[in-house]
Structure formats: C-alpha cells, structure tokens
C-alpha cells in the first residue's frame, strides 16, 4: 500500500512538473509557426525565391 501511494505521488509530481513544460513547448512551437507564416505572407517573393534556390541546390546535390 505504501509503495503504491508513493508511486502515485511520484507520478503526480512528475506530471505536475512535466505538464507545464509540455504546454510551454507547444505554445512556443505554435508561436514560431505563426511567426513563420506571417513572415512568409509579408515577404512572398523572397520566401518563394529562397525555396526555389533551395530546391535547386538539393537537386544539384542529388545529382552528384
């Protein structure tokens, strides 16, 4: 009984410590995604040209 209770307590502690970290990480990822989307929308030409250049480079590397 004592062991089970201690395991439960430990699990609760871990959850209490990990859950905010996970939530924070999720929010950070969402925020980064929004920032990227906004940047792409504000600079479409630059981003698409960059993507074309990146694709070109990947193709050149793949041909080697």
């Amino acid at each position: 009984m004592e062991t089970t209770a201690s395991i439960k307590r430990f699990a609760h502690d871990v959850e209490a410590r990990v859950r905010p970290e996970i939530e924070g990480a999720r929010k950070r990822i969402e925020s980064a995604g929004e920032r990227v989307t906004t940047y792409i929308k504000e600079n479409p030409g630059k981003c698409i040209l960059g993507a074309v250049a990146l694709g070109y480079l990947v193709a050149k590397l793949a041909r080697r």
Partner: protein
Amino acid sequence: MKPFGDNPTNAPANGLTTGGKPDGGPTLRQRVDQCSRSAEQMWAETRGSLTDLRDAIDVKGRTNRKPYTALAAGLGLGYLLGGGLFTPLTGRIVGAGLRIGIRVALLPLLEAELVRMVETFATGAAEETSSSAG
C-alpha cells in the same frame, strides 16, 4: 564644298536624309520617331503581358491563402530546374510516397474484409451452436 562627295542629291551615302527625300519617303527624323514609337509600344505591350502573367500566377494571393503550399511549390520548381527529376533521390521519395499511399488506401479495405470475415465466422458458429442444441 560638296558635303557628300559626288552625290548629286546632296544626301548621305546610306540613303538617309535629314530634310526630306525627293521621292517623298520618310525623313531621318520621321524614322527615328517611328522607331521610338515602336519601342514605346513594344515596352508597353511587354509590361502589359508581364502584368497579366503576374495576375495569372498571383503569387501574393496564393502565398496568403496557403503559405506552406506555395513554399513547397517553389521548392519543387527549384528541384525540377536543378535537374533533380531523374535522380535516385526522386526514386526513393516516390517509392516511399507510393508505399505510404498504398498502405493508407489498403488499410480500410483490409479492415472491412477482416470485420466481414469475423462476422461470418461468428454467425456460422452461432448457427452451429443453436442447431446442435436443438
């Protein structure tokens, strides 16, 4: 002094005149004006075509609606321009896509077939049990 040597029409050797030709042809100024007008017209037409092309492609609108799709399209275009179509990497990507696609497409079919088999088996077993009991 004769300005153009022995030319009796007093015109330059290239046939162009500056003050009008005796046969009524265009003067040098008229030709220059015509060239200038043609160049301006061509430039205007080129600009119009470019504007039409830009409107047709609508990069900004597409990027606003689906930014990641537009980026992927740019990446693909660059890949094609770089000659990456017939490379082993393309083969691997296409192969992996096909495998995943076939799995995703086949999974519901297999699931339905399994459910049908289980139902048939269960129905048969129930009928057998009831006939043996009766």
